């Protein structure tokens, strides 16, 4: 197996992770800034990446910023928020061509890194705040983003299911925030918040490409110096164990042609647990692949759906099942899905299902190594979990999982909420 280990160097209180690799024609930088997921900050955190991408001190207008990116051979800059367990992560990235594949070898690594740190730490400002026009425009955009959630019925149903299932828990929050907070949020308040975030929240900076660690760290040292002092918060895991007292059924109505069925379960298993690899195998046998029980029984045998699958939210210990079905088939689909959960609990799993799942999981993990973003994502998962599990360790652990291990995990899984979006 090719080397896929990041070298980690601390620059003050910022962690820099570098993976030198010759297989990519571009260099990828990613920064994660992790905030707690909570109602008071969710909307502000959601708004920040958009505002930071509007302008920097050297390119204060958006048009200058976009042209700068084009001049850097079409470097891609992005920023967004995601919900990982009860962490609200800001993720920024810059991907830039490696000059060795260009005719006129410009110094793209240095320029790219320099610009990326400027986007993060030297935004365009006026007075004591961000530029007010940027904040107002991005508030409008965020409002549209929140309102347009219902345009994508599959995502809408997934979010509604989580809201119902995790009522009262931070995880119920929508990662793009709440409409009610937007109105009174101003450029100065947001800037004050931003300064607090970059001073106190954990920051991890990644670089993958045909680079050397020394070179990247050298380029970053001065650029990070003023940010990297003082104490930062650390990552803690969300509570995972939560006894289900009774199964909830929630039905929403919208103008849909197809019913969207989402079922949420509590796995009661933490990502740091020794049972976690068995949980990953459990999810694979149940609904991760076309050979899985859900696909075979709901789609292939009963012809009820085009898609029916399950996935894990590992940092919150949830397992989510989703399918799109004819509205009249709700009960049939729920019954078949429940039968599959029961079959898992009873150990009605054959050797072939176990072997297929191990083989496809192994493949999925190994394939991540060919994508810079997935390499970064996998490593950062360990940072969030507070416990390193390398790719090799994960692969070995999966190989060791037995049917008994899967059944033990299955018996902990509890169905919590059945959500149905219908006409």
């Amino acid at each position, binding site marked *: 197996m090719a080397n896929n280990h990041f070298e980690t160097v601390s620059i003050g209180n910022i962690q820099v992770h570098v993976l030198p690799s010759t297989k990519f024609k571009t260099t990828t930088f990613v920064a994660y800034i992790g905030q707690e997921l909570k109602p008071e900050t969710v909307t502000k955190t959601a708004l920040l990446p958009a505002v930071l991408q509007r302008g920097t001190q050297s390119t204060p207008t958006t048009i200058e910023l976009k042209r700068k990116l084009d001049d850097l051979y079409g470097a891609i800059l992005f920023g967004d928020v995601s919900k990982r367990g009860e962490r609200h992560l800001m993720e920024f990235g810059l991907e830039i061509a490696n000059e060795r594949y260009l005719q006129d070898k410009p110094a793209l690594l240095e320029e790219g890194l320099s610009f990326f740190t400027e986007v993060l730490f030297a935004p365009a400002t006026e007075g004591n705040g961000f530029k007010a026009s940027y904040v107002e425009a991005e508030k409008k955009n965020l409002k549209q983003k929140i309102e347009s959630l*219902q345009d994508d019925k599959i995502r809408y149903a997934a979010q509604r299911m989580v809201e119902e299932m995790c009522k009262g828990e931070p995880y119920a929050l929508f990662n793009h925030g709440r409409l009610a907070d937007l109105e009174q949020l101003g450029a100065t308040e947001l800037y004050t918040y931003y300064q607090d975030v970059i001073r106190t929240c954990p920051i991890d900076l990644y670089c993958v490409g045909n680079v050397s660690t020394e070179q990247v760290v050298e380029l970053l040292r001065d650029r990070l110096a003023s940010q990297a002092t003082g104490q930062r918060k650390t990552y803690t895991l969300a509570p995972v164990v939560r006894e289900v007292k009774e199964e909830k059924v929630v039905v929403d109505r919208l103008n849909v042609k197809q019913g969207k069925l989402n079922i949420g379960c509590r796995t009661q298993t933490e990502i740091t647990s020794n049972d976690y690899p068995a949980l990953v195998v459990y999810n694979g046998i149940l609904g991760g692949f076309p050979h899985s029980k859900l696909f075979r029984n709901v789609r292939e045998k009963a012809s009820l759906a085009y898609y029916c699958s399950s996935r894990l939210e590992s940092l919150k210990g949830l397992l989510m099942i989703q399918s799109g079905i004819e509205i009249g088939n709700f009960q049939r689909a729920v019954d078949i899905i429940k039968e599959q959960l029961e079959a898992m609990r009873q150990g009605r799993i054959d050797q072939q299902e176990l072997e297929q799942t191990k083989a496809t999981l192994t493949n999925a993990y190994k394939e991540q190594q060919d994508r810079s973003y997935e390499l970064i994502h996998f490593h950062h998962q360990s940072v969030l979990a507070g416990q390193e599990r390398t790719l090799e360790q994960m692969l070995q652990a999966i190989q060791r999982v037995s049917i008994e291990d899967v059944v033990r995990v299955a018996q902990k899984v509890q169905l919590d909420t059945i959500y149905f979006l219908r006409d």
Partner: protein
Amino acid sequence: MQKIEFAQIQETLFYEKLPNGLHVYILPKQGFSKTYATFTTKYGSVDNTFQVPGKEKISVPDGIAHFLEHKMFEQPSGEDVFQEFSRQGASANAFTSFTRTAYLFSCTDHVDKNLTTLLDFVQSPHFTDENVEKEKGIIGQEIRMYDDNPDWRSYFGLIEAMYQKHPVKIDIAGTVESIAQINKELLYTCYETFYHPSNMLLFVVGAVDPERTMTLIRENQAAKKFEQQAEIVRFFDEEPDEVAQPLNEMKLSVGISKCLFGFKEGKAWTQVEGEAALKQELATQIVLEALVGPATELYQSLYDEGLIDDNFGFDYSLESGFGFSMMGGDTPNPDRLLERIREELPKKIDQGISQDTFDRIRKKKIGSNLRYLNSPEWIANQFTSYQFKGVDLFRIIPMLEELTLADVNERMKEHIDWSRFAVSLVRPLG
């Protein structure tokens, strides 16, 4: 086996045309763990009227190419081929577009076995009355899923607005009614017409040894018998230059309006192939970037006015017989957005694109191309799609370097023709 080197991007491509007519390409990727392979037939949703050599001309139900794609996974043993791929640790899939049907897998182990599985399952159809009927429920739900997807509806809405006759206006999956007419005999007819090796292309990219892999493919194909096939004749009604309707409007359950607009390519510009097609495609992409790209004054002012947001995008499609540009996204005020576009584009066309703008966009496109070359999926799919229209994927960077400002300004005048402008609008209900 031919060996083609691309020095600047440091890639080497291997090629061979097999005796049965199959085109095979292999691109080894240094340092990669995975191998990705696509086995593609030049047969898509638009190929709905054709003549099997020596037989009568026929028209087939809408959605049959896509239906056939689903049914190829069925095996004589009764087990679908996903099971076999899973045992071999591969992730398999397929897709149908307007002009292609592709079968694919990716894996990090057992490449030889998976490649053999891919070749064998696509070359051994097994359709029964029962398995054809069963699929109608599954595809019915796939169609319903797209019915609930407003982005897809507005995308197709624009194509419907542009095209009067050409089958590109028909949804790739067909309708619940059209797929009801599909039976196993029709599927075999389509299969026998379009799945002959001479109408297909195999692309393997990733962690492979080209010699060994080519030998495996050669032997696999030599062991199978294929009748010689005469050229397939496809029929398309004459498509007028004019759009079918300038505005296609619908109301759906959405939070915000969706507005897509673009220019239908005139007939003269949909008959191009090879280098000319690549030049036209790249030049048009540069035109769109110069007109409505994120670094333009127009984009920024529309953004500041709140008429567009960061999902505003643009694209250009060019195939034999049809072509169009497409721009747009979510907007709270589509009428105002269209008004601004109609006001501003003519001014920009009068001014022409400047040398600075052209140089900046060309740089951007060269950098983007390097980024795409990180993706085995992009290489295989894009290479195949280009090859079917006689275009060489690895000519993109050299062609970008050869393009001149005059070429691009000329292209802008050809393409931006308001008599071929159409709009697709999705408004919120109520």
